[in-house]
Every structure is written in structure tokens, then in C-alpha cells.
């Protein structure tokens, strides 16, 4: 069952229990003016209740359950406490009360089990909370995010992130700039804002956040490529037919609907590759084709980052210090697992030579925001049917959409720096000064939210927008990871990535089965990510 459903079912059960108990009314008190009536009502009770005798003068006597009525003497006797009308104790011990002096006798039944439902509710809630807590502590990759997330709508959560910045920059020396297409709708206002959130246990060091904008006309789109080039394009040619190892996947690939195609990893080798074939029929002979593709990673790379940190254990500080001073270590990190896993390699079928030709490769780290990129295709055939092959690592990529477009040419977008930053709704001039100074960093801590405002120069002009973010982040070491210290594994991961990917395959498979399902099934609802409607 999905975690979200478990939480809601629990909530429902507890609400029901508490509601039933909240509606319960206890009737436990009886008053008797006549001693005979009292005797009659209490004679069959196994354990006699305490008895309160309210005297005509306002005093009260509370008799323990040893009391008895003497109908001959017309008295009630027993051990008890006598109070005056202001309820001060006047006597304690054995008392004989004349029934004639009593106005009312009062009995009370014991109320029991009043807290059972509430305690049950609390225990169930605590059980579920602890279970989720344990799950998240033992599988932090499934519950905690990474890198700054950006939202056009500040109220969205990470499932609807529009961009995630510099996901691979896990230390200062690995700092880099990242560009993400914002897939924005038609702009009518000269002002644009985007909110940056830190939703993870990390320190985000942000050097720059800019908007890249290029004016577009009706029917035009500008796409960003893996090489950080920008292409002005027109027309969209949807995929006619798409097949993966599992069969027909056309419905998953054809629309920008967040119904993604992904596969699970190979249980024997995490670097196993697979192929997807895309057919574009009647795309046209005279187009300069570019493949538009919306993709993101699964949680596989996040798993490796967290695993590596776990293997470092209490020596993590030493390792990160080494990364800072040794280019060789950085090269090893970049050339190790990352290289073995690879990107999404794109090939075009040459009909004349009956051969696949590689057009390029797409790569972007991060499992949260969907990357929308373009890869110019090297199409050397004169056929109007274009056939594309994607070669990708099994279990590493999620693909939402693929289509062809006609590239009109390369363009250079405008760079727009923020003119205002809001921090918790208030203008933060210090943050603005830091972001606009390339030598300084804006530090964003867990829970921080900064809203950046940009002036688009010309009102009523439509722009295609891209987000440029530069910086790095420091993952917080978690206590529970320290026990995972394994320097041999770390060494294997860095020095012999292929062996590591084979040896780790079975462990990852277990993790993948639960984490991927839990993580993505917690999606709140399908939201339309379409360019036209976002």
C-alpha cells in the first residue's frame, strides 16, 4: 500500500475511534429522596457504590462502600467524611446518619474505559509515525531530497518542481552552473518570479540565479541543449510509434502528461543498457530535426551519493577535504560511476547505409524536476520518416515526452538578474546583493524560501524562459549513516565502478522496489505540466 494511503487510512481509523468516543455521553449519577428506593436499586449490585448523603442543612457526608441502611433505626451508617455547606471537613470516621436529616442520597457508577479509544488512536498514530520515521531513517534517499528546487508557483511541493539546480555539485570544488527550461506559458506581464526552496537536510550555497530569456513569436519555441546552446524551433512532430524492451510505449512518450516511461534496474548489473526506438512518420524531408525530450533520473544516483557518504562514515570530512584539494579525486568521481551509467545516447537510423549514427547524448543529474532539452539530430537521409534510437542505462531514466521539432537556428538569450528577492514575504536586500555579486554566496538553509523577481524589459512581449543557477550544496551527514562506514566499498565504487555496479545490483534491487514505488506513489495528483497550461 502507498505511504500516502497508509497515512490517510490511519487518519480515518483514528478519526472514527475518536469521533465515536467523543460522542459518548456517560450517565452515571442517581439521586434518591427515599432510602427504600436507594436500597432497592443497590441491593443487587456486587460492589456497593460510594454513597453521598446530602443533608437538609447543606452538609454532605460521603460514605465508603461499607455503608448500610438500618430500616428499623432509620439510619445509614458507615465510614465516611462529613463536610459542612462550604465543604470543609468537619468529621472523619464512623458515622450514623438519621435518614430524616437527609434530603437526597446520591450514588455514582464508576466510569471506566473512558480513554481506551483515544489511547488506541494515539498508539495507532504513534505506530504509523514511528514506522515512517524508521523507514525514512533507514532509507533516507526515499524521504529527503537534494539540491535547491525552484517553483513558478511558490505553493507547489517537490513533486511539481520546475527546476532543480546544480544537483551534482556536492562540494565547493564541484560547483557548476545549471540551466533548466521553465516551459513557461505565454507571458503578458513584464515581471516574472520564481521561488527557490531548500527542502532537504543540506546547506545550499548559491552563487547566482538568473533568468535567460529569448523573445518568441506565435508557433515558435526555444529549446536548450545539453551543450548549453539555445535553438529557435518551430512545429512539433509527435512520435508515431515508440517501443521499449517491454513493448509499445507510445502512450507514455507521446504526451507531456507526467506519465513517464521507466524501467527497473538489472538485478545482476546496474550498468546494463536498454534501447527505446522512436518512429516519426512523415516528419518531412526538408526539416532540420531536433529531438525534444523531457526526462529526469530515477533515485539511482541519489542512492549512490548517499551510499558513498555512508561508506565514508566518520571520515567524511577528510574525504571532502581531499576532493577540495585533489583534482584527481574529482576526476575519478566524475569518471567513475557517472561515466559507467552514462546519459541517454541518441542515434538516428540511416536508411541508405542501414546503420545507426550517434547524434549525441543527454545527461542531467536529479530525480525531481523534469529536464526539457533538445538534441539536434544528424539526419543524413532524404526520407520523411525519421527513426531514432535511445540507448540508456536500465533503471536510471524516466522519460515523459519525446517529439521532433524543426530547428530554425541558434540564438542567444538575454541574461536577466533578479531585481528583488523576497525572504518570507519581505524584501531581502542582503540576499539580492549576494546573488548579484559573483564573488559571494547566498546561503540557504533547510526550510528557507527565496522568491526571485525579474524584470522582463518589454511588457506584452512573450519570452521563452530558462533558469540559470550556479552554486554547490553540502549534504548533512546523518548519524545513522556513520554505521554504514565501509572504506573498501568506497574504494571499489571509485576505483572499480563496474565491479561495484555489479556487486551492488542485488542490494539496490531491494531498495529500488520499495523506495521508487513509495517515493513516486506519494504523488499528490496529476498536474498538467503542459507548456500551454502551466
Amino acid at each position: 500500500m502507498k505511504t500516502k494511503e497508509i497515512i490517510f487510512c490511519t487518519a480515518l481509523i483514528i478519526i472514527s475511534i475518536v469521533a465515536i468516543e467523543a460522542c459518548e455521553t456517560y450517565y452515571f449519577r442517581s439521586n434518591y429522596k427515599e432510602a427504600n428506593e436507594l436500597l432497592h436499586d443497590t441491593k443487587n449490585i456486587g460492589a456497593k457504590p460510594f454513597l453521598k448523603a446530602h443533608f437538609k442543612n447543606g452538609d454532605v457526608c460521603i460514605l465508603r462502600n461499607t455503608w448500610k441502611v438500618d430500616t428499623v433505626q432509620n439510619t445509614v451508617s458507615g465510614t465516611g467524611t462529613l463536610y459542612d455547606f462550604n465543604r470543609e471537613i468537619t468529621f472523619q470516621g464512623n458515622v450514623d446518619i438519621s435518614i430524616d436529616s437527609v434530603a437526597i442520597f446520591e450514588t455514582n457508577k464508576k466510569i471506566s474505559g473512558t480513554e481506551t479509544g483515544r489511547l488506541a488512536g494515539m498508539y495507532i498514530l504513534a505506530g504509523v509515525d514511528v514506522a515512517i520515521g524508521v523507514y525514512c531513517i533507514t532509507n533516507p534517499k526515499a524521504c529527503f531530497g537534494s539540491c535547491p528546487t525552484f517553483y513558478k508557483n511558490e505553493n507547489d511541493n517537490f513533486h511539481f518542481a520546475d527546476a532543480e539546480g546544480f544537483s551534482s555539485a556536492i562540494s565547493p570544488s564541484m560547483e557548476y552552473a545549471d540551466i533548466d527550461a521553465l516551459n513557461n506559458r505565454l507571458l503578458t506581464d513584464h515581471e516574472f518570479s520564481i521561488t527557490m526552496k531548500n527542502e532537504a537536510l543540506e546547506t545550499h550555497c548559491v552563487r547566482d540565479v538568473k533568468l535567460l530569456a529569448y523573445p518568441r513569436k506565435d508557433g515558435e519555441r526555444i529549446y536548450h541543449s545539453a551543450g548549453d546552446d539555445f535553438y529557435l524551433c518551430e512545429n512539433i512532430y509527435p512520435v508515431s510509434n515508440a517501443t521499449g524492451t517491454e513493448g509499445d510505449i507510445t502512450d507514455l512518450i507521446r504526451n507531456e502528461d507526467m506519465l513517464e516511461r521507466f524501467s527497473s534496474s538489472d538485478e545482476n548489473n546496474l550498468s546494463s543498457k536498454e534501447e527505446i526506438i522512436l518512429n516519426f512518420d512523415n516528419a518531412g524531408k526538408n526539416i532540420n530535426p531536433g529531438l525534444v525530450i523531457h526526462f529526469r533520473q530515477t533515485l539511482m544516483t541519489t542512492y549512490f551519493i548517499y551510499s558513498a557518504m555512508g561508506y565514508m562514515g566518520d571520515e567524511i570530512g577528510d574525504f571532502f577535504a581531499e576532493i577540495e584539494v585533489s583534482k584527481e579525486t574529482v576526476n575519478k568521481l566524475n569518471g567513475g560511476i557517472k561515466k559507467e551509467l552514462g546519459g541517454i545516447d541518441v542515434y538516428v537510423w540511416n536508411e541508405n547505409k542501414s546503420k545507426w549514427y550517434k547524434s549525441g547524448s543527454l545527461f542531467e543529474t536529479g530525480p525531481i524536476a523534469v529536464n526539457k532539452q533538445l538534441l539536434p539530430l544528424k539526419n543524413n537521409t532524404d526520407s520523411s520518416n525519421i527513426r531514432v534510437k535511445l540507448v540508456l542505462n536500465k533503471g536510471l531514466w524516466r522519460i515523459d515526452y519525446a517529439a521532433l521539432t524543426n530547428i530554425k537556428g541558434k540564438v542567444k538569450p538575454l541574461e536577466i538578474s533578479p531585481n528583488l528577492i523576497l525572504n518570507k514575504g519581505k524584501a531581502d536586500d542582503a540576499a539580492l546583493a549576494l546573488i548579484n555579486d559573483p564573488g559571494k554566496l547566498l546561503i540557504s538553509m533547510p526550510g528557507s524560501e527565496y522568491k526571485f523577481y525579474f524584470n522582463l524589459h518589454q511588457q506584452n512581449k512573450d519570452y521563452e524562459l530558462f533558469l540559470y543557477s550556479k552554486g554547490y550544496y553540502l549534504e548533512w551527514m546523518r548519524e545513522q549513516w556513520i554505521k554504514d562506514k565501509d572504506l573498501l566499498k568506497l574504494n571499489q565504487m571509485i576505483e572499480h565502478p563496474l565491479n561495484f555496479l555489479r556487486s551492488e545490483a542485488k542490494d539496490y534491487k531491494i531498495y529500488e522496489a520499495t523506495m521508487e514505488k513509495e517515493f513516486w506513489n506519494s504523488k499528490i495528483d496529476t498536474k498538467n505540466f503542459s507548456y500551454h497550461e502551466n
Partner: protein
Amino acid sequence: MKTKFIVAAFAVLLSLSSCTYSPDYLPESEEIDVNQYGSYISLYRNEKETIWGELIAVDSLKFIVLSKPEDSPVRTIKIIPVKEVSKYYVKYAEGVSYGGAVPLFMLASLTHGYYALISLPVNLLLTIGIASSGDSAFTYDADEISVMDLKMFARFPQGLPPGIEVNKIR
């Protein structure tokens, strides 16, 4: 958005804490049979004024209520005509306080990562619900108990005894 939700949750908590007030003279639920005082009553008079305190006596014409120092800054005894009372509720035992669970479960949500988006509001709502239900467990309102049956929960269920001056009641 999140801040508003938390503020709203605390506002609910605050309002619950005020309506579920338990004075010292109220017994715990296990001791209702040995408590010498009347129950706590809150009366709404003419939809304008709220009077609360220990229920001293009640009959078909009037309520007699003693506001003690723990109820009100000034000890007062008030006689309120029944016809002027639009609503009332009576509390005969102290509820169990689960208020501490609210911040505790909020903190627990911090360990839930992304799932805190769901678990935090669920935890807040449920713990507030449980705390509220616990605090108000031992009460009756006008729909559950008639004015005449309220007598049983007065200090003097037989009515104000003759010879006792109301101003001398403490």
C-alpha cells in the same frame, strides 16, 4: 501557506484550551463519586454574558453559580434566572490532557522527509482532535441534560438549603 496552517492549528489549540478549562474543584473521572463540590458550569446569559463557576444549586427558576478565585479574579455568587439562559454546558470531571502530544507528533513529522507534507497536517489534526476530545470528554450540554437533571451536578442537589445565605457560600 505552511505558516498560516500552523498558526490556524495553534489558534484551534488555544480556543480548545479556553473552552476545556478545568478548575481545581473538579475531580478526576475516577473520583467523581467522592467529590464534595458541584460541577463546573458555563452559562450563556441573553447571548451576551458568559457566567461560569461551580454549580451551587438549580431549580426550575434559577441557577446559583459560585465563581471562585480559580474561575474569576473576584469571587462572586450569581443567581441567574433560567429564562435568561440560552445555552449551558456542565463539566463534571477533569479530562485527560493530550495537549503535549501535539508538539511531540509535530516533531515526529520532521523525521518523515517528504512525507511530512502529508504526515504533519494529519498529525496536527488528529492530535488536536484527540486532545480536544480528551479535554471535553466529561461534559454535558443543553441537548444532553435538562435543567432539572442538572440538579444532580450541583453542590446542593436538593436545592439551596434553608438558612444558608448565598453570600456566605465559599
